[in-house]
């Protein structure tokens, strides 16, 4: 971290080398788990640096919950998202609270089963909770549906890479259910057709 090295790095810092994601919802929706799996996949399967943080209330359950992921070519200094490139809102409150931080070119993804009022047209609505309930049979895995969507939308890491981490992280008995939810999320995005979105950078998969 000497001055000289710092100077060199500073130049590289320009451009889209830093990509920020924020996930917002309520405690118990599992967004921190989703963020963690996603971030770990990026760390494990790409050369990029990744930093995942969260914040939550002191409550056992309930309350607001937030998770953030920063992806960068460089070691990451400030670990939090300031102007997210992508905001994934799992409920209305999260959408309302965090939308104003979103980068002007950023994308908003909402769980359309729970968010009624979307503050921009540049948004993507996917009914994560509904998909979880209907296609997987368990609302609890809405976070995994969202994870699938996130993977597909950001292209920061291959779905295969994320799935590998996901399967290692979830409890034994629930592997199938979670995989199903994850894949349902991917399909849901694919169904939306070609979206021209900014994304972190090429995926360098090294599975």
């Amino acid at each position: 971290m000497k001055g000289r090295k710092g100077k060199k790095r500073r130049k590289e810092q320009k451009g889209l080398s830093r990509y920020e994601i924020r996930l917002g919802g309520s405690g118990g929706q599992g967004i921190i788990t989703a963020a963690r799996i996603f971030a770990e996949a990026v760390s494990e399967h790409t050369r990029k640096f990744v930093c995942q943080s969260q914040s939550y209330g002191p409550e056992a359950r309930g309350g607001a919950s937030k998770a953030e992921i920063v992806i960068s070519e460089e070691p990451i200094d400030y670990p939090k998202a300031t102007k997210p490139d992508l905001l994934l809102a799992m409920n209305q409150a999260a959408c309302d609270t965090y939308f104003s931080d979103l980068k002007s070119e950023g994308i908003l993804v909402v769980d359309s089963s729970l968010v009624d009022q979307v503050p921009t047209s540049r948004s993507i609505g996917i009914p994560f909770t509904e998909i979880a309930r209907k296609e997987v049979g368990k609302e609890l895995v809405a976070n995994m549906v969202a994870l699938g969507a996130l993977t597909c939308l950001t292209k920061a890491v291959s779905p295969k890479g994320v799935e590998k981490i996901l399967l290692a992280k979830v409890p034994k008995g629930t592997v199938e259910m979670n995989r199903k939810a994850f894949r349902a999320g991917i399909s849901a995005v694919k169904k939306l057709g070609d979206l021209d979105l900014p994304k972190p950078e090429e995926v360098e998969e090294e599975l």
Partner: protein
Amino acid sequence: MSKKKSANRYFLQGNEAVVEGALTAGCTFFAGYPITPASEISEILSERLPQVGGTFIQMEDEIASMGAIIGASLAGAKSMTATSGPGFSLMQENLGFACIAEVPCVIVNVMRGGPSTGLPTNPAQGDVMQARWGTHGDHPIVVLATSTVQDSFELTIKAFNFAEKYRTPVVLLSDEVVAHTRETVELPPREEIHIIDRIAPSMPPEWYIPFEDNSRGVPPMAAFGDGYRYHVTGLVHDVRGFPTQRPDEIEAFMKRLFRKITQGFNEIQMTKDFMIDDAKVAVIAYGSVARSAKRAVLDARDRGVKAGLLQLVTLFPFPRMKVEEVLRQCRAVLVPELNMGQISREVSRVNQGKCQVRKLNRLDGGLITPEQIMYELLKI
């Protein structure tokens, strides 16, 4: 740090990195009591320690935890506890025992917000002065502050090394942000890591004078059960370890306690600097705030301000020399902290009117942002 993907690359939380650091340093004993945001350290060690033949115990409270790690250390183990503010307050009395009885041990305090129960899930840097002064009676102590997951690994090892080398408790300050942030770290191969063990007495038991002075000021330390039967007490003691009220013995003892740390200043007082060489204004920061500061320095440079960062890795003994250098070189320094100004007081103290010292304090439960720091830098 290499950008190459390698076998040593991990995706870890700050608290996990502390665990890895501790195990690497040779920690074999942990006693603790759960508390947010430090609990993961206990939880993971409860699984890992028995795997390496070590011992984990969850005690009835933090007072007991501190007592147990001192006992464990006296029995020869490298020992550690981890807590947050409320628990750290409770550890203070026994922490003083470790100082006066010269028992190596590591105390990790993952800082959270506010006095009392405060803001259990928010980051803060409110326990900095407490780490230095929290126990009664004047005493020397070593306090380090981690700012990244990588740091958490490396500084935990340093903490053990200092503890063992100087026979002193070492406090490692982390905070909620560092503790719970997960990031990519690269752990160096074991053989590249320098591990220090305490020096055992080399003389036969009859000759062993457990608290005798020597050139380093640090007497060799025998473990209970090794055949050196000696006395350890929290009372001020003579070179044999027995209570004394003789002014000459008291003074010699107290002076040595301080001297052993003073003699180690060179290696103990760690800082990192970033773009400081030609800086005209500098940020002096530590912990997670140093990360914001780094970004802010880059951003300020983009706006034409010759900014730099001096990151304090060791908070106490306060790295006075390095700070003075910066104070001499710069027109102004900014000390951003998640408190009302604690290290800024130390900076002012050594400043002696040389330089403008500004504070930036945030107490609302959020991390100081790069923007906040940059804004201040632009104002100076």
